[in-house]
């Protein structure tokens, strides 16, 4: 996965709270079996509305999303992150994220930064004053800036490090191979096995 350092892209104000993953990507798109190509699915129902923010020319090629609180709630579908990523988003900011969504994001190189409600409002105002303006995201410094406005965001140290390094999950874990084998050797025999018991 790509390293994340300092990134600038068009900022998109999404003035909605409780954006659940069904809204980010409706269930009908989950049928695909590939890992990429979900850009058309992002916010599909909302995009049917001509007034939706991503349908406005200034925001069409947006890549930094500023959303209301409780972003990514609901279903654990990781397709929500793929859809954001495939559309071109590299970072999402909100005052509150759902845990699973946030976990999924970190693994795909999508930055999810927590900002205050007041900063959300301030960023929205700054972007809407100049639609199409770029936001600059400095992951190491934990700031997102639009014009003269620069706000601090929260991200946990571990995820930050991984994003900065562009580190893949499985490789990291397999460094603990010996510990895993050890654990398996100690695992009690009553613990579940899916085979060979015949159902």
């Amino acid at each position, binding site marked *: 996965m790509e390293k994340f350092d300092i990134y600038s892209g068009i900022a998109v104000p999404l003035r909605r*709270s*409780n954006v*659940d993953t*069904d*809204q980010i990507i*409706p*269930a*009908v798109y*989950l*049928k*695909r*079996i*590939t*890992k990429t190509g979900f850009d058309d699915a992002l916010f599909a*129902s909302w995009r049917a509305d001509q007034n939706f923010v991503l349908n406005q020319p200034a925001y069409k090629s947006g890549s930094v999303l500023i959303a*209301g*609180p*409780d972003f990514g*709630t*609901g*279903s*654990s*579908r*990781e*397709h929500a*992150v793929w859809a954001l990523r495939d559309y071109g988003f590299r970072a999402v900011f909100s005052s*509150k994220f*759902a*845990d*699973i969504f946030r*976990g*999924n994001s970190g*693994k*795909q190189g999508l930055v999810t930064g927590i900002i205050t409600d007041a900063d959300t409002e301030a960023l929205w105002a700054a972007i809407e004053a100049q639609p199409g303006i770029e936001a600059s995201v400095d992951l190491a410094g934990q700031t997102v800036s639009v014009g003269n406005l620069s706000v601090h965001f929260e991200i*946990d*140290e*571990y995820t930050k490090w991984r994003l900065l390094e562009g580190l893949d*999950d*499985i490789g*990291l*874990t*397999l460094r*603990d191979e010996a*510990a*895993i084998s*050890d*654990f*398996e050797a100690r*695992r*009690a*025999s*009553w*613990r*579940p*096995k*899916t*085979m060979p*018991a*015949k*159902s």
Partner: protein
Amino acid sequence: MSNKPLTLAEKVWNDHLVAKGENGAPDLLYIDLHLVHEVTSPQAFDGLRLAGRPVRRPDLTIATEDHNTPTLDIDKPIADVTSRTQIEALRHNAKEFGIRIHSLGDLDQGIVHVVGPQLGLTMPGITVVCGDSHTSTHGAFGALAMGIGTSEVEHVLATQTLPLKPFKTMAINVEGTLRPGVTAKDIILAVIAKIGTGGGQGYVLEYRGSAIRALSMEARMTICNMSIEAGARAGMVAPDETTFAYLMGRPHAPTGQDWDDALAYWKTLPSDEGAVFDAEVFLDADTLDPFVTWGTNPGQGVSLLARVPSPDDFADPNDRVAAERALEYMDLKPGTRMRDIKIDTVFLGSCTNSRIEDLRAAAAVLDGKKKAEHIRMMVVPGSAKVRAQAEAEGLDKIFKEFGAEWRFAGCSMCLGMNPDQLAVGERAASTSNRNFEGRQGKGSRTHLVSPLVAAATAIRGTLSSPADLAESNEKAGL
């Protein structure tokens, strides 16, 4: 650390620690059981193939087809191309990687969260994961059960472990005795209305108290199932005699010496006297009414006896805006009696309420009655085995004579990935777990209800509880 009183969740966590995370890195936990279905797994298997990695423990992995399987004509090829592609991909991957699969037509095919417990694979003190947020269902056994995303599915397939951050614990104390007509579903809807859809965020919930102890395993599953709707990572109930009795004799349950060893261990699991929870919530079971939702998230619920709230009832500005939007979407006017809301479709099914007890409870209400003329009712058992058992008990006849559709097992209208969808603007009373915009079909409107409320609603045509039936009988002089 050895003498510190621990909660159930902490005990299970500690017993699965492969490596302790340092410098803010997550702990590495061993996973006892990995459940796989067709929707969230294809890309994970794809990833393995790309990297040339095998599945580390096929013997701790099991697959079933549920999310987009048809519930009619299951012997015919699946008409929808993409659904068929996903199912074929799962079958192909199971074969290639050596994983047991329960396919359409198999008695253990069905919703992944119904099948795990049915097989006796779900047991106390284990870790369970699945690429589905309602994996929290399995916590009813005192397992630590969590929904994961597709890249985590790939991670577990490759390593049988998962890096996880420690979470906080929250005790949900439900004391007292439920009144007739009030069920587990009403408890959990009331809990979510109380703490909100984000109230459990970062927590593992432990449901405790006399009202929880009195519940059957299936009812406990209903409660744990919806923990995720309060934002929690997992929900748990301490194992007890009810748990052990449910497990004993199931196909994958331990036997002989293994059973004795397991039982001895399981009895050590309940939270210690004096264990400290990071948060506590209290709910009175004695005064609880049947609970239903009016809005577009599971926290927007009220007593069935109440009225549709007004946005002004909410102090928090975000809640107010959310309520306004929800009322508009749901086409509801504040002040309307919940019991006057007219329903088009009743859906009895989903991993929340599609087990045999749910079907029995609904059938008991429907027996000998006729459905309201305008109502369409769909009954979708959670697994092929539940369906077979219901038929052995004659429940299917009751449903059919009532005028309901008796379907094959799967997720069905819970999320409408197969043809089982609501039309635009259609209003459902649904025993599922999510009333999000468009969840049951584009433009669909969902009221979450218990199986008892679903059944009574199908009879009266408006949101109702079995108690309303008695009232209308009295009025009619019956």
